[in-house]
């Protein structure tokens, strides 16, 4: 499956959302309970909620933008574009962007959840897998932006590390 630059934006947005928010939930919940099922339930609930809000959010935002573009084109053409190829392509873009955003979010959520689903149950493994995924996302980001791959990976991993440190600090405060 190939994505254009517009969809690539939603792959990155959704993946970062799903990956880091779910990792945050897992790190937070694993402090109070070492039970696999509780961590999986909390993480999975978060993953579903994120996927739905990201997907619906994109649907609503893209509908607004695409409708605005369509009206602008209609004004230039002095005609309505209802039931034309232009309108059908616009609707397809809205649905594709919403599915890409929501889908990327859900799939990325499964990465930190995977060790808990498989019964390994380790926050360290979740963090490690998340950082590996951020490296892959950095490479993808560098590829679509035609920028330096190393810089792109560094930015992505730096962001992830910052969030992990913040969540860990909150955990320490909670434990104290």
């Amino acid at each position: 499956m190939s994505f254009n630059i517009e969809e690539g934006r939603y792959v990155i947005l959704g993946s970062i959302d799903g990956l880091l928010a779910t990792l945050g939930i897992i790190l937070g919940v694993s402090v109070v309970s070492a039970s696999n099922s509780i961590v999986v339930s909390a993480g999975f609930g978060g993953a579903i909620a994120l996927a739905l809000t990201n997907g619906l959010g994109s649907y609503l935002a893209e509908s607004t933008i695409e409708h605005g573009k369509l009206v602008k084109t209609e004004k230039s053409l002095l005609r309505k574009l209802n039931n034309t190829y232009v309108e059908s392509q616009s609707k397809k873009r809205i649905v594709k962007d919403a599915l890409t955003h929501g889908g990327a979010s859900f799939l990325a959520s499964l990465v930190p959840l995977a060790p808990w689903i498989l019964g390994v149950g380790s926050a360290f493994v979740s963090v490690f897998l998340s950082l590996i995924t951020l490296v892959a996302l950095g490479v993808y980001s560098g590829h679509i932006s035609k920028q330096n791959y190393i810089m792109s990976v560094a930015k992505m991993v730096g962001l992830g590390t910052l969030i992990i440190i913040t969540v860990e600090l909150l955990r320490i405060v909670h434990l104290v």
Partner: protein
Amino acid sequence: MSQIKRLVLDVLKPHEPTNVEVASAIGDLQDVDGVNLSLYEVDQQTENVKITVEGPNVNYDLVQQTIENLGGVVHSVDEIIAGKKLVEEEETLHDRG
């Protein structure tokens, strides 16, 4: 009614679908032998193109419908050749002046 052999249309269309897609869609119509699409003007939202369609029996309504389905508008029909053979425009003294 004699058969239309060539149509030259002045069309205003959005940037999407592309000119390649529009020319290809018209070229796929029945009784169309060939299409020439030339870009004349590019605006922020639209493009002005000249579309020349040739064939043994070009159906104008179908061509117009195809253009409109693709989001375009036929501004004017600039040239029509109908009948048994292609008759080109003759230059007159008025044109030379």
